[in-house]
C-alpha cells in the first residue's frame, strides 16, 4: 500500500468519524481513498472549498465530540495555521497530517522536511504546542494514526503526523492488526444542552488578561505533562557508537543505510531517530552525548531540527549538519562521504 492509503485505511479502522480535506500533491490519495471508503462505513467525508474551510470543519466536528482528521501538504498546511491555533487554544482533539513537500512558496511537490519549525515551534499565533509524530515507514503511517487519535483524546490536544512526500507516496507492506477503538468521554462537547447540565461552549477567547494567562498556564502544564510522558524515539547501534547520526522520517531511513556503510568500514556509527518531534527527546540525546564524540544531523532542509539537537547536547560534543533541499534526496554514499570529510578532512579527499 501507499503510505497515504495506509494512513487513510488506518483512519477508518481507528474509528475516525469525519474527514475534511482539499486536494494537494503529494497527499491527494488520502482524500480520494476516504471519499470512496468513508460512505461505506456511514462516516462523513467532505471535500472542502479550501484548507481554511477544512481545518474549521475539523474544529466544528472535534468541538461536537467526534473523531476527526484532515490532511494536507506544506502550502495547504500553512493555510490551516490559523485554525490549528484556534483548535489548540480551544483544546480540541483531532489528527492533522502534513505530507511535507519542499518549499518555500509553491515550492515543488517533491519530499522535504522544511516544515519542522512550523510543526514543532508554533506555525500559528500564540503559545501552543502540537504533539508531533514523525513516521519513517508506511507501517508507521498507519500505526501513528491509532496512536495519534489516542494521544489527541488523552490530552485534548491536536496531534500532527509530520510525514513527507516520499513516505506518503512509497509502497510498502503494511499490517493493521486488531485495534480496540477507545471511546473516550467528552463531557465538554457541544452535543446539545440537556436540562441536567450547564451549557457547553467551545472557545479560545479569554478577554480578561488574568483569565487568558490562567489558560496559558493551564496549557503549559498540559504540555509539560506531554513532555514528561510521551517522548518517543528509536536508537540503533548507539551502545558502542562513537558517532551518532540524528535524523527523522525519510532522512532516518537514508541515515540507516549510511550507518550500515560506515559500520562496514569499521566506523562506530549509531542512529538516533526522534519519533516525537514534540516532545523532543532532549534528555535521551543529552545522555548519548556523554558517550559519543560527535553527532551529525541530516535533514531535508537548511537545518531546523539540528537546533534542537544542539540544545539537547548543550555543547558537550560537536554537532554537525548535512542537508539537501528542494526535493533533492541524498544517497547513503553521499552522507558517508560528507561524514568522512568531517571526521577525517584530509583522508576523505
Amino acid at each position, binding site marked *: 500500500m501507499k503510505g497515504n492509503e495506509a494512513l487513510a485505511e488506518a483512519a477508518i479502522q481507528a474509528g475516525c468519524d469525519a474527514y475534511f480535506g482539499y486536494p494537494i500533491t503529494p497527499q491527494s490519495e488520502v482524500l480520494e481513498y476516504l471519499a470512496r471508503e468513508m460512505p461505506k462505513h456511514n462516516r462523513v467525508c467532505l471535500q*472542502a472549498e479550501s484548507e*481554511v*474551510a477544512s481545518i474549521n470543519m475539523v474544529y*466544528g466536528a472535534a468541538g*461536537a465530540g467526534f473523531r476527526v482528521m484532515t490532511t494536507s501538504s506544506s502550502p495547504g498546511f500553512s493555510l490551516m495555521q490559523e*485554525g490549528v491555533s484556534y483548535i489548540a487554544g480551544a483544546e480540541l482533539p483531532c489528527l492533522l497530517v502534513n505530507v511535507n513537500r519542499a518549499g518555500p512558496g509553491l515550492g515543488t511537490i517533491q519530499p522535504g522536511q522544511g516544515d519542522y519549525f512550523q510543526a514543532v515551534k508554533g506555525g500559528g499565533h500564540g503559545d501552543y504546542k502540537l504533539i508531533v509524530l514523525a513516521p519513517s515507514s508506511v507501517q508507521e503511517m498507519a500505526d501513528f494514526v491509532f496512536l495519534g487519535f489516542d494521544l489527541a483524546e488523552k490530552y485534548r490536544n491536536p496531534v500532527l503526523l509530520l510525514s513527507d512526500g516520499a513516505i506518503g507516496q512509497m509502497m510498502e507492506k503494511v499490517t493493521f492488526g486488531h485495534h480496540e477503538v477507545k471511546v473516550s468521554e467528552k463531557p465538554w462537547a*457541544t452535543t446539545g444542552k440537556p436540562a441536567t447540565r450547564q*451549557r457547553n*461552549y467551545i*472557545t479560545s477567547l479569554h478577554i480578561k488578561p488574568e483569565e487568558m494567562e490562567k489558560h496559558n498556564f493551564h496549557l503549559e502544564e498540559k504540555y509539560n505533562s506531554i513532555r514528561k510522558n510521551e517522548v518517543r524515539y528509536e536508537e540503533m547501534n548507539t551502545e558502542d557508537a562513537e558517532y551518532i547520526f540524528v535524523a527523522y522520517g525519510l532522512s532516518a531511513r537514508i541515515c540507516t543505510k549510511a550507518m550500515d556503510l560506515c559500520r562496514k568500514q569499521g566506523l562506530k556509527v549509531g542512529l538516533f531517530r526522534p519519533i516525537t518531534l514534540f516532545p523532543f527527546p532532549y534528555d535521551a540525546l543529552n545522555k548519548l552525548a556523554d558517550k559519543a564524540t560527535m553527532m551529525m544531523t541530516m535533514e531535508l532542509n537548511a537545518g531546523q531540527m539540528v537546533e534542537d539537537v544542539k540544545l539537547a547536547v548543550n555543547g558537550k560534543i560537536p554537532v554537525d549538519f548535512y542537508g539537501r533541499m528542494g526535493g533533492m534526496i541524498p544517497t547513503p554514499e553521499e552522507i558517508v562521504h560528507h561524514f568522512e570529510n568531517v571526521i577525517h578532512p584530509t583522508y576523505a579527499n
Partner: protein
Amino acid sequence: MQTEEMILPETKVTELPEACSHEDEYELVYQRPSTMVDTTMHYCPGCAHSLVHKLIMEVVQEMDIQEKTIGIAPVGCSVFAYDYMDIDMQEAAHGRAAAVATAVKRLMPQHYVFTYQGDGDLAAIGIAETIHAVNRGENILIVFMNNAVYGMTSGQMAPTTLTGMKTTTSPDGRQNEMYGAPMKIAELMAQLPGAYFVTRQAVNNAGAVRHTKKALLNAFKYQQQHKGTCFVEILANCPSNWKMTPLETSHFIDDEMSHAFPLGDIKVPKGDLKIF
C-alpha cells in the same frame, strides 16, 4: 414591507405603583425566554444584537429544541453570544462559522444548527465559506447581522457600507469607484440552488421585530424538514459606530439603509410550506 408605528422610548421615568410589588396579584404577560442566560449584556444601548439574540432564543424555547440546538458564534461584536444564549455553542474563527456549522450539522443531522455572523465576518473574510455552505445546501440557518460597519473594531468600512457613508476607514464616505457598491448578500445567496429560504428583515420597530421573529421561526421549521440553507439577513442598528442616537438609527434604517438593502422575502418556498 411597511414599517409600523414607532415605539418611542418613555421620556419620563415614573416610580412603579406600589401594587406592582405584589406579583401574585398580576398576570405575567412577558418575560425573558428561559433559553437566555440571566446576565448583563455587553452590547451598547440601542444595539440590535441583544434583541435578535432574544428572538432566536424565543424560537428555541417555543419549539422546545434547547437540547438539540447548537449555535456558532462569530468574531465581531457578537463573539460573546455564548455568554447569553443558554445552549451549546462553538466560537468560530473570523468568517469560518459556516464551515464549522457544516461539520457540526453533517455529524449531527438531527440537531438544529445556526450561525450568527456580522457583515465583516460573513460578507468579507468569510464569503467563501458562506457561499460554499449555501451552495451545498447545508441544512443550517445563517443569521446575518448587517449593520454596514465593522462594529467591534469600532466602525471601519465593511462590504455592506452604504455608498457615501462615512466610516473610520472611509472618512470622506464610501466611494464605489474604489470599493465597489455595497454587497447585497441576501440576493447573492438567493441565487444559489442550495438556498431554500432567503429573507431580509430589520428590528427597528415593533412590526419589523415581529416579521423577523416569524422569519427565524420559519427558518428553524424548514431546518426540521431538511430543506437546505435558510439565510436571514437582518439590518441591525449600530448607534455607537453610526454616531447616532438609538432612535436616529431606527430612522436611518427606514430612510437610508432599507433603500440600499430592500426588506422582505427574497426566496421563499412555494405552496403549503408558506403556512408557517
